[in-house]
């Protein structure tokens, strides 16, 4: 275990930023991941960034290639893959798990090379959640917020940031900053971990979620459940839940007319939108009920069916915080999981 005094962190960030692009939670009104600079208002105390850090690996929008059209001819130029090392600092356990869930989509055969290049060049410094909130429910998804995954794991306790490298990438980053870190005993971190786990056990959503009822064997039964008829009613189809979700994977491919050329780009899309599945001959998901159902069936049944039973939710609670209609996955799990009709 290593440590650095909290008031020395700006110097630590400056050293990291010399070797790689550094992103961390920065307060600009709200708190979100942004590039570090000396005068940035770094905020490692706010528990949840508004958006998850999935942007670093699956950007909200990215160009795939540029097409120049001349008469009947087309010239294509593929966008180069990411080749700049970067560090994302302060990622919470739920969001690290979110990236692992995206890995199973984007790194499975056939591999998405754009995503793979970013994963290869990115180092994740995760951070334990000293003060978990009432909207957190990571425990049912087997995430330990007191000891998250990541290349380096950090704990903020007792006026210090404690530092432990977990992977080869993490060890490399540690070497770069080693002169700034000093050895530390484990006891402060051990005590914080115990405290975090106790706090999480006491949170309302961390016990009693009937997740075990969501199984591929019950796919049709859950799909046809009568609860969907009432659950979706207040959904505004705004798509906020999908954009703030660390595990939502869906994308669209579109064209941007750049004047002399066309940029073909991909961008996040939302299964909550009516044109998501719209075709010339009709739409298989005609009402918001089908779209709403798709999002939760994907996270709780379809994704697990393809990925050894692992759910595509990490309990970060962003949808609980942000849905303007107070809909969220906890309501869906409780409604479909508990009711005897299912």
């Amino acid at each position, binding site marked *: 275990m290593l440590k650095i005094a909290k008031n020395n962190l700006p110097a630590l960030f400056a050293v990291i930023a010399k070797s790689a692009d550094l992103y961390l939670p920065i307060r600009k009104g709200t708190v979100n991941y942004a590039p570090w600079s000396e005068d940035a208002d770094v905020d490692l105390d706010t528990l949840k960034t508004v958006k998850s850090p999935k942007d670093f690996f699956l950007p909200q929008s990215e160009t795939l290639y540029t097409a120049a059209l001349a008469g009947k001819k087309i010239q294509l130029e593929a966008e180069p893959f990411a080749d700049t090392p970067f560090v994302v600092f302060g990622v919470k356990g739920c969001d690290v798990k979110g990236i692992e869930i995206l890995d199973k989509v984007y790194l499975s055969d056939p591999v*998405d090379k754009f995503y793979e290049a970013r994963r290869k060049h990115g180092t994740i410094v995760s951070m334990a959640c000293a003060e978990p909130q009432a909207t957190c429910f990571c425990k049912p998804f087997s995430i330990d917020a007191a000891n998250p995954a990541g290349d380096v794991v950090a704990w903020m306790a007792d006026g210090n940031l404690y530092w432990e490298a977990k992977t080869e990438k993490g060890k490399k980053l540690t070497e770069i900053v080693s002169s700034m870190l000093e050895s530390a005993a484990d006891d402060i971190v051990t005590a914080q971990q115990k405290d975090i786990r106790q706090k999480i056990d006491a949170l309302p959503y961390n016990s009693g979620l009937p997740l075990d009822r969501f199984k591929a064997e019950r796919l049709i039964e859950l799909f046809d459940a009568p609860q969907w008829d009432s659950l979706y009613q207040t959904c505004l189809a705004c798509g906020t839940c999908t954009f703030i979700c660390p595990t939502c*994977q869906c994308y669209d491919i579109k064209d941007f007319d750049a004047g002399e050329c066309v940029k073909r780009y991909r961008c996040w899309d939302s299964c909550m939108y009516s044109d998501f*599945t719209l075709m010339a001959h009709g739409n298989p998901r005609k009402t918001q009920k089908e779209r709403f159902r798709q999002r939760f069936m*994907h996270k709780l049944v379809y994704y697990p069916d393809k990925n050894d039973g692992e759910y595509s939710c990490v309990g970060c609670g962003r949808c609980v915080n942000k849905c303007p209609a107070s809909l969220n996955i906890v309501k869906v799990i409780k409604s479909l999981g508990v009711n005897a009709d299912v």
Partner: protein
Amino acid sequence: MCKTPDLLIPQIGVITDIRTETSDVKTFKITGADGKKPFDHMPGQCAMLSVPGVGEAMFSITSSPTNDDGLLFSIKQCGTLTDYLHAMEVGSEVTIRGPYGNAFPVDTVLPGQNLLIIAGGIGLAPVGSVVRYVFDNRDKYGSVDIVYGARSKDDLVYLKEIEEIWRAQPNTNVHLTIDREQSGWDGHVGFVTTYPKELNISTDKTALVCGPPIMIKLTLASLMEMGFKKEQVFTTLELRMKCGIGKCGRCNIGSKYVCKDGPVFRCDEIDELPDEY
């Protein structure tokens, strides 16, 4: 093997031939920029065609893998991209990527079997690849019955090829039908969905069905009434697609991505999926 840096990056394709099938269907031959077939495929597989600035969409490949000089796509004019494609000329470039999805089991399940191929409208395009492949390897398969229907006689595609080539094949019957009476048509009138039953076609066959979703559902129901088992019937499905490789998340039916786990499904597999196609 992908010829471009990533599967989402297409290669250049050239339209080398355009054949008008009906008032709203044209068949396009696409080669690579080098004049050769862009890639190999198996019957039932699809490819993404695109015009940058207009759009990109998935189309079934209707030519047989045995056809070496390009890939054929029969495309119905029904949206932004297909409108644009229909206005294009020979020599124009498009982009193409693929092949995507699985294929009809032409080399595993179908050899030695009697085949019943049922198609509605432009649905003859995907199974057309099977028909042409079977005729190019005629002695590997048993009898072939093709039951093909469209709204009117003017909506039947490949008519010349059907009359001159398909009907001339040994041990092969072609049955055409149109939905409503029409002057100049002395063939069968009625929906293709129940025509195999009217024809009293025996159940010692493997059936391949393709058409609009409602046609597939009604045809399956009729085949079941005739005594076909679901394990004897294959179909191919279509949903909106963007990536073609099971990642963009929009063409799923339950846990299955039509672009990757399909588009060809055996009908007992479809039974296990939610009714959302």
